[in-house]
């Protein structure tokens, strides 16, 4: 077994928490995170060095990204701080088209000389690869934006909040969990600030300041006599917000069934940890589900992952065309299905939208990593597949001439490529509450929070677990269930969607470390929805005796 398999943080669950060490830069002090970094006028001058060098070497297009990536991660368990990580990574990535072919090079030597050298390398790579390239790169036109800026609309910059305050908050959440019966608790706070300067030969100079935050924990309860243990993960969502997400505002809480409290744009970690400990203990004696067909009522913090896997990934155009065939796979949503204009992805109440502008979301930016102004567009309208996710060098393949603006690179030293925008289910038009979803279900299960997830390489067959499960009998929640997972087929599943709560229940789920490409790059993306009901879904029992 490879060492990286053991870097997982025990107790925090899901593989998504594997520490992506490549994202970390040089360790610095928390105070140094506040350093404003390089002045924008200097960045512009350096960017021009890259663009002019590229042009003089015969490149027909060039873009340059000067990036400063700041991370602060805090890890605790029970009453102990495990680690506080503050890192900074600073450098420049230059991408060019020469002889109709892409070339890319990067350097952490952010000076005239360093940039000239890297630009030379990028052009040389493009020219070398041009010899084996079969089709010339074709870029969709883009507007020249001049000098512009964009900033995540945060209220509290995490960098200005003392580390001690963050540590205290996590330790208080851990203590609350332990006081309420948890045997173990691991908690973590991930905070990211991307300071990205982009310039291209199209005449844009774009300065962006992007913030993200993710508080999370895993609480474990153990029954020593039976040897059983159960974990309950946090019901938080990673967000494109500042530290204000940790305020726990009462106005952003939503009451779920069985006293469950759910969170919209503000998270109360102490309350959730308290609830988690009680629920983990309840799970130890929860009824094991009987396998069969159930009507599923899926809460947004759960449904988001299903949207991510069964809608987000299959509608990435590079997957559809086969560019990702050797890694994550291809897609069932082939071009002929899209061209037919009548492929029923879901029932007629299903509207799935791609979005790079939604406030509070992880995918929100003003401009993507190739200088395209971001927007919102339809993927599935009234149940029918209408579009994909594509960037400047791809849209011509689907007969469009405007990039969707979803190009992204995880760092200055990685080349940008098509990444998933926020993909969300629109709320229902009729006024429905969570209770309305449950009240006419005879035999069903209410599922909240993310759990185990697995889907095939063309995104047909999937299996999802969850964080907490409640049995619904004759329109009422009757108790907790255990050993639940549902298996379905993407098209069948979305066509079984019969009811969606209205806007008042809408909230975001997020994936902080979504992987794609070889070498693999991560990105962060949100998925919004309201609670929705899916009828007659196959549920299996995952309990085993060994």
């Amino acid at each position, binding site marked *: *077994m490879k060492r990286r398999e053991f870097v997982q943080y025990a107790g925090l669950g899901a593989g998504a928490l594997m520490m992506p060490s490549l994202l970390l830069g040089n360790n610095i*002090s928390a105070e140094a995170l506040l350093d404003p970094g390089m002045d924008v006028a200097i960045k512009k001058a350096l960017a021009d060095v890259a663009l002019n060098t590229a042009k003089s070497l015969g490149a027909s297009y060039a873009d340059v990204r000067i990036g400063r990536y700041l991370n602060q991660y805090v890890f605790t368990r029970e009453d102990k701080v495990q680690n506080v990580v503050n890192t900074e990574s600073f450098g420049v990535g230059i991408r060019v088209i020469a002889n109709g072919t892409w070339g890319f090079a990067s350097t952490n030597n952010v000076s005239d000389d360093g940039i000239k050298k890297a630009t030379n390398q990028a052009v040389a790579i493009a020219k070398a690869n041009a010899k084996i390239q079969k089709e010339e790169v074709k870029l969709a036109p883009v507007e020249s934006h001049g000098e512009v800026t964009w900033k995540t609309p945060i209220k509290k910059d995490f960098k200005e909040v003392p580390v001690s305050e963050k540590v205290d908050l996590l330790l208080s959440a851990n203590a609350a969990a332990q006081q309420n019966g948890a*045997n173990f608790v691991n908690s973590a706070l991930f905070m990211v600030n991307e300071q990205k300067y982009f310039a291209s030969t199209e005449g844009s100079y774009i300065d962006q300041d992007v913030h993200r935050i993710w508080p999370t924990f895993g609480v474990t309860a153990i029954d020593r006599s039976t040897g059983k243990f159960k974990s309950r993960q946090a019901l938080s969502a990673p967000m494109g917000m500042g530290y204000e997400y940790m305020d726990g505002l009462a106005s952003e809480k939503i009451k779920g069934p069985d006293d469950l409290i759910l969170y919209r744009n503000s998270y109360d970690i102490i309350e959730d940890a308290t609830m988690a400990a009680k629920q983990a203990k309840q799970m130890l004696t929860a009824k094991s589900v009987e396998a069969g067909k159930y009507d599923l009522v899926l809460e947004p913090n759960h449904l988001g992952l299903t949207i991510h896997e069964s809608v987000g990934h299959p509608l990435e155009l590079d997957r559809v065309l086969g560019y990702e*065939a050797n890694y994550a796979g291809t897609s069932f949503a082939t071009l002929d299905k899209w061209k037919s204009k009548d492929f029923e992805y879901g029932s007629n109440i299903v509207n799935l939208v791609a979005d790079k502008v939604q406030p509070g979301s992880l995918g929100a930016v003003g401009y993507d990593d190739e200088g395209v102004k971001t927007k919102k567009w339809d993927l599935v309208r009234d149940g029918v597949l209408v579009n994909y996710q594509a960037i400047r060098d791809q849209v011509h393949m689907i007969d469009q001439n405007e990039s969707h603006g979803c190009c992204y690179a995880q760092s200055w030293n990685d080349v940008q490529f098509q990444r998933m925008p926020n993909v969300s289910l629109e709320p229902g038009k009729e006024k429905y509450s969570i209770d309305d979803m449950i009240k006419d279900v005879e035999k069903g299960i209410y599922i909240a929070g993310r759990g185990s997830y697995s*889907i*095939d*390489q063309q995104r047909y067959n999937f299996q999802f677990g969850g964080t907490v499960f409640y049995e619904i009998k004759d329109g009422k929640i009757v108790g907790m269930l255990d050993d639940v997972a549902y298996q379905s087929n993407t098209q069948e599943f979305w066509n079984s969607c019969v009811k969606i709560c209205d806007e008042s229940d809408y909230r975001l789920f997020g994936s902080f470390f979504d992987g794609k490409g070889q070498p693999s790059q991560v990105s962060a993306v949100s998925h919004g929805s309201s609670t929705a009901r899916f009828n007659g879904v196959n549920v299996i029992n995952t*309990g085993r005796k060994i």
Partner: protein
Amino acid sequence: MAIYTKEEAKQIMEKALSFSKADGCVINMSGSESGNIRYARNTVTTSGHRSNQTLVVQSNFGKKSGTATIDEFDDKSLEKVVRRAEELAKLSPESPEFMDPLGPQTYDDSLTFKESTANVSPEYRAEVAAKSINPAAAKDVTAAGFFNDSAGFSAMLNSNGLFAYNKSTNMDFTVTMRTKDGTGSGWVTRDYNDITQFDAAEASKVAIDKAIMSSKAKAIEPGKYTVILEPAASVGLLGNMGRAFDARTADEGRSFMSKEGGGTKLGEKIVDERVNIWSDPLDPRVPTGTWDGSGQPVKKMQWIENGAVKNLAYSRYWAKEKGVNPVPFPSNFIMEGGDASLEDLIKDTKKGILVTRLWYIRGVDPQTLLYTGLTRDGTFYIENGKIKHPVKNFRFNESPIIMLNNLEKLGKQVRIDGNLVPYMKIRDFTFTSLSDAV
């Protein structure tokens, strides 16, 4: 130049250590040169080269520790990084689990570096792609692949007199071949320390043949089947099982290795008695470094002996808490095999499924080590000792513990992801649904 010799690395690290004013100081240094080529739709899509070097300083004052990193090794930079680690240590909260730097150790010489791999050129990489793409195109098959080679070193020096150094090379190759009509898909993986063992054409042919053979698969009912698992199909489940060998979570009562009523399953028989699994950094077929991240020597270690749990891994901290010797996590694993070839295993199977690989494996229940995932890139129905026809992919829900209890026969070992894993015939493997994915 990112690959330093033992002497060069030691000199730089000693210089850095000379600036230390902390109670303890640990310096780790590493560097690597790597190159890759990626192709899809029978054409090269990207290629790249990466060079990096880094020096990490961990300083501690009592149980407060701080870490700082730098990629320049001149005296001024070295002093700066040591000062920064010390500043961070002073500012950090106390970590009750902090362990003082380890004293001097003796290590075996590793077998991980091969000059041939360190000398891979961009032309060689392009040739790998061509050896995949050309035969694929000739058979109307579409190739998508990735080849990566790397050479690097890592070294460690601390204020208690420990010094460790290792140099290694690696290459990884995967290719997916798909028939033009999209009904067949084959895949292959190869990894070596020594690139002279790698044959891109041979590997690509395996994937091309599988793509053609797996075309137009028939659906058969999911259920419990006898399966022949190629090493690529079982390595993921075995690796996941390996994670359960952590003594701490077992002692804490939250692992498969925890025992009802307290204690651990150490010494208990958990799988078929023909199962023997060990790790060995000096096996020339799958060599690894001979020391771990905390500086402890890594030696041959038995994990499962005749089906029973022989050892659990203890971090330095947990070993101290429990009053035992630390046992480092392994960096490879070797599962004992038999003499049977894949053909032999197929020949004596009356009714079964041959599985090329398992994909998207995710944990379902840590209590029983239940995992789910799907078959991919070549799944075939076997009847009366012969492959009859390709079958559609299945989703499985299975625990490696149950799988290794249902062992029918072990076949030959194959290197896979740096480990040695045998072909295995397993009865009653649980497939829970069908997938249309190719």
